[in-house]
């Protein structure tokens, strides 16, 4: 059974804290993605990575950074958390040449920034 796992289901942080969200996939996929999902706005792409140490900005990268040191692991970093980063964060992975129909999503991390 293929899996994308995320380190936390729920997270509560204070404004200004540095936050790490971790995602691990066991399918040997080259591509990994971070989205945020907000009511009324749908899923929006923050960053994606197509290989180890490679990354590209998505539609809303401001306030975020990412790290991909190993193929199976993709981390999203909030350098200084702000209340407007309260959201559901979803990680996904797909094969190198795979389209949207080949994406597998993790269960999400619901982040609350106070």
């Amino acid at each position, binding site marked *: 059974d293929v899996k*994308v796992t995320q380190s936390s*289901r729920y997270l509560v942080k204070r404004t200004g804290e540095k936050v790490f969200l971790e995602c691990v996939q066991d399918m040997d996929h080259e*591509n990994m*993605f971070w989205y945020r999902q907000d*009511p*009324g*706005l*749908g*899923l*929006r*792409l923050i960053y*994606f990575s197509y290989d180890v140490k490679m990354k*590209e900005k*998505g539609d809303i990268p401001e306030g975020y950074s990412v790290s991909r040191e190993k193929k199976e692991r993709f981390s999203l970093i909030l350098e200084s958390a702000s209340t407007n980063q309260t959201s559901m964060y*979803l*990680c*996904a992975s*797909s094969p190198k*040449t*795979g*389209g*949207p*129909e*080949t*994406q*597998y*999503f*993790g*269960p*999400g991390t619901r982040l609350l920034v106070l």
Partner: protein
Amino acid sequence: EDQVTQSPEALRLQEGESSSLNCSYTVSGLRGLFWYRQDPGKGPEFLFTLYSAGEEKEKERLKATLTKKESFLHITAPKPEDSATYLCAVQESGYSSASKIIFGSGTRLSIRP
């Protein structure tokens, strides 16, 4: 500007009461339209891809159809286990990577026994 709009935002049906969800889109050229199901506390799960107007795909009680401006997800005789949020997404022609898709905000479907 490319856009995907889903309606209604929420839909409550009685078990067995058929209905349709709408996804209207604006892109300069369509490579594909995608439907997903998302259960509470889970990530989206892929259901269908539609590539051209007139195309239809079916899976159990769900049937997706596509025109040049919109897609419908028809639910026939739904059961409580069909309760979920249904997401629509489009990909513009010229792109194949999953990094180039636009999601709608979803329709939250609730089926009462």
